[in-house]
């Protein structure tokens, strides 16, 4: 707990690296909208990819079912 608290205090008090995400804009919240956008884009992409995989699987099984019925 001490370690966490002291490192958090350091990150607030020490001069902040311009490469770090927590650099604040004067008078406003941190400018980290790109991280939010990236997170939402990744989540949407994963869901969309899985949905496409599922629908393709179903289409393939339906085709297989039709083929086996036609073969009979």
């Amino acid at each position, binding site marked *: *707990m001490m*370690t*966490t608290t002291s490192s958090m205090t350091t*990150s607030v008090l020490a001069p902040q690296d311009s490469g*770090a*995400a*927590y650099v604040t804009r004067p008078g406003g*919240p*941190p*400018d*980290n*909208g790109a*991280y*939010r956008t*990236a*997170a*939402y884009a*990744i*989540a*949407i992409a*994963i*869901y969309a990819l*899985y*949905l496409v995989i*599922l*629908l393709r*699987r*179903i*289409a393939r*099984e*339906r085709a*297989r*079912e*039709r083929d*086996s*019925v036609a073969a009979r």
Partner: protein
Amino acid sequence: MAVSLPGAAPAPPAARGGVDGLLIVALLACAGVIVRALAFTPVDAMQGPAQKILYIHAPAAIVGLYFASGLVAISSLMYLWLKDPRLDRIAESSAEIAVVFLSIVLATGPLWGKTAWGTWWVWDARLTSTLFFWFLFVAYLVLRGAIEEPQARARLSAVMGGLATLLVPFIHLTVYLFRTMHPTPVVLKPSAPSMSGQMLSTFGMSTMAFILLFAALLRLRVRWATLRDANLERQSA
């Protein structure tokens, strides 16, 4: 053509090439929640826009850890008791969807961590146990692919699925049992939620939308597994 497996339901509209109503509703709910979270929910004064990652990260964790994994445990244990192949298909489907949701948790968490902690990843108890849990469920799916005999596959994966899910209560308690960078729950705790009303309602809607999406994906995935098994049975007959 009806599916020939015992107890199997007729193929859903999506499987017949039509539109799946539940899936459409779930996708619309998710789209609505994303719009609400991004455009109509206030920006956190301390954390900035990255705080909005919470609205997809935490609901995905709730669904992946508690709903999907819980269903794996219940259906696996029920399979060991009843030996009903439908329960095995539910466990298999739920495990795969749990991997999808947990992948989102593990992908979006570091993005928030970078903004809040200044680092993408820390090997603390919450993050590490969640990653291990993800590995266990991936191993569960790999195990299923490696065993050809259906009864042996169902039995062994039911044992593994049931045991793997024992990690879930531990993951939930890690933030209380260990020193961890990960925040304690803001909603799933005995005291009142530590969130403003508007943010809390967005969080609640997001959780409901993700549960709906889980139900829609599970329905599709189980139907596919039913079709697949029916085709395999037809081929072997």
